[in-house]
């Protein structure tokens, strides 16, 4: 069985698994990092959203063979370490401040997507406004969308 290695939340990890297994299952079932959630497995619900080299992606739709040893994968568990200071990422703080989460199942993906969207907007010189937020496709079945909007705007100010 092939060995795959990559950086996960700042640590180099190795795992023996077939090439075609999707990264979500490698992370969740084999490496036991359970922040990214399964909600559809077909890159639709976005509950597994994580970062690869700082950009949002969905590990349900990437085979482990396509991940390089130098690739840095960050899940919600590693997000705080990507921000300066010893606390949480500003987006996580905003999420707590606005009491966004209801059941919490989709929220790791929501936060990871939000951080990437804010970075994208800033890089492109766009405002983080309702139009930008409406590009996010993450589903929240509890329907806390309006607090998500507030938190993204608040979090963006501190990023």
């Amino acid at each position: 069985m092939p060995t795959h290695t990559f950086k996960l939340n700042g640590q180099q990890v190795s795992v023996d698994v077939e090439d075609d297994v999707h990264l979500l299952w490698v992370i969740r079932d084999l490496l036991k990092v359970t922040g990214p959630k399964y909600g559809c497995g077909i890159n639709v619900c976005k509950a597994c959203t994580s970062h690869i080299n700082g950009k949002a992606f969905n590990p349900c739709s990437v085979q482990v063979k396509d991940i390089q040893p130098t690739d840095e994968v960050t899940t919600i568990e590693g997000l705080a370490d990507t921000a300066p200071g010893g606390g949480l990422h500003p987006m996580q703080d905003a999420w707590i401040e606005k009491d966004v989460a209801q059941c919490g199942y989709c929220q790791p993906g929501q936060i990871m997507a939000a951080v990437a969207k804010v970075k994208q907007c800033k890089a492109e010189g766009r405002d983080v406004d309702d139009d930008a937020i409406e590009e996010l496709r993450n589903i929240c079945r509890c329907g806390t969308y309006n607090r998500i909007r507030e938190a993204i705007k608040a979090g963006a100010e501190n990023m």
Partner: protein
Amino acid sequence: MPNHRATTTREKPPREHSRRFGQSDLSRRRFLGYVVAGTSLIAAAEFTRESISDSVPNASAAAIPSTPQTPEIYDLSDAIRDAARPTANLIRVKVNRDNTVSFALPRSDNGQGIITSTQMIIAEEMNLDPDQVIVTLADARPELVFNQLTGGSTTTFSTYTPIRVAAAIAAGRLLDAAAAEMGQDKAVLTSRAGTITDTAGKALSFGDLTAKAAAPVTQAVQVALKDREKFTIIGKPRTKSDARDMVTGKKKFTTDLQIADALPTILCRAPDLNGYPRSVQNLDQVRTMPGITDVVKVEGGVAVRGNTYGQCIDAVNALKVTWANGTVHGADDASVLKELRAAELPLAAPKGPGSLEGDFVFYFRSNSSLETNCAIADVKANSATIWGPAKSPIAAQAEIAKKLGMPQNAVTFHVMQGGGSFGRKLFFDAAEEAALVSKAMGKPVKLMWSRSDDSRQGRVHPMATCRIRANVTADAVTSFEIRHTSVATEGNPGLSEPITAAANKAPLGNLGVAESLFELTQFTPYNFGASTRFLNEVDMGFNTSSMRNIYSPDVATARELMVDQIAAKLGTDPYVFRSEFAKQARFKAVLDRAAQEGDWGKSMADGTAQGIAMHVEYKGCAVCIVELDCTPATVNRKIRQARTGPRVTKVTYVVDAGLIINPRGYEAQMMGGINDGLAMTLTSSLHLDDGHFVEASWDNYFYTRQWNTPPEMNIVIMDSDAPEPGGAGEFGVAATCGAIACAYARATGKIPTYFPLDHKDPLPFTPYPTSPPIPPSPTNGLQTTF
């Protein structure tokens, strides 16, 4: 104005409110409870019936008072609480040596925030900080009989008083123990944050005192509860206690648990709804696929266990199975509707020149949560342990025991926090299935439904028709009849037993479960003369359950559309008409506040309109005003893999729900309910075709997304002198549905006759095949980064 907010105004309601709700009577009452024998202090509660009577007739000149309807006197909340009453004294609060207080809540939290609100209730009574109260979800406790059901928005209503009684007893015992220890009169002691202090500053902690306050033998004690005027925690907004865990990935859901040897397990299911396997052609071959450990044929499909879910999915899709037909083989939307039409009950009041009639169809909708059905099961020869989200864990435990051929107490059911429920987790399909698969494989399993199974084979909100006839004179409504005809909503033992057990207490006599539920929940809140509401259900073999209520959102949609038509016939404004015909002053107050907050009657552009609707349930009253944009530019917006259509641009939601424990949490529940209302009315439905549901995932089933949600949302929680909390979880939906439907009719001039509005539009997707059953994961995820 903020986009949404809980009200901060603390205006006092008029004097008659206090009389009406009998607040002074409650504060004088003493409650009976127990101190339970032990080495630490454990207090338990028993409680007696509180009286709530808020029926104040408010007749307008024209409004013909309707005779009282059942929910005015005795509703579903009462039924579930009364069923819970005989065993509620088993609710226990324990004071720990580390200065915390613990309580195992016999309810299921799937995001409603009831763990946080329960911490607040206990902390209030014991003068603690809510963080000092540790609330967990209780394992299935069969001795609680009916009192471990989470449903019908009844949790806080049914647990508020017994929890307070137990906490008050504990607080009193600790004070007595401190007084004895300090040689002081307890009247001079103060208790704050788990420390009891005397006037000289000497202090003892709850942890120091718990052993001294413990009872050598169980004894009954009487206690008075804290006066509401002294509340410092209840009624103050509080962030959820697990907010940090949820944003850091620490919160564990069932499939996140690491139980030894409980490997990922998925079922291969039939193309037909509820089809089952006759034979499998390639079992041995699939068993040798990479990562796969076990493949066995079971009742509902072929179970595959392996090292990763991804490998299980590949194996499921590789299976060659001969399937038996399902329970609705060959059926489609039209054939189901035809059966419903044949079962419709007649309207009684004669049709005349003053009659207004409405006939509405509500298609199937999915209550699938983002966490799919899941459970971990470890079945051994003489015992079984189950982990899973469950709103009726006692029933789950009993059913699983029966299926495994074990006594009920051989099955341990650990109730996990769920990733959403909305009614889905009233049932325990995955837990039952996991137990059977674990038994068949002789190994622990972590069973999860695939998204496509959860959508296509999972429980649905039943398809229904709702017919209404109103007889209207020059200035009054003389009769208002509702006939709701629905695909049967399945009852499970956990839900149906308390309802049937309590049904005899209600004035309605001895009805069946569904009819009882309908009668206990449906209420026409207007003075419309002879008001009748009847339900007929047809069992057609669907897997059904509630979805943030069963009947109310649909009945409210139909009812409020008819109310607008009656108002139009009488030449009255929709808000003014509702206000004049509202059955109670309390309802009128909510309507008036909503009209003011929502700027009712403001000038709206062509193709846009406001809509208003009222719904009364859960010991409360809600009024929603929406602004809906039906202009072509908005309706025809193009977003890939999405439904757009008419957009709700603003929601004003005003609710009087009695005593509010946590306004922040309550507002969150309304927000979720409002977004559900959008989905149910505008975009979300299942299409039945050739014996199966077409929609396989979120790119087919269009729950509200960011591009649908209202940019502006103003949630106002009215101040209330009511001594008790009402319901929350389902209370945001029905009024929203009604308001959107009315706004659509006003914006377009067309009264909609089916819901959701886009159900008959061409499908904006190519359906996934039903065989193989699980759409394979794409591999191009590195091309869609941002």
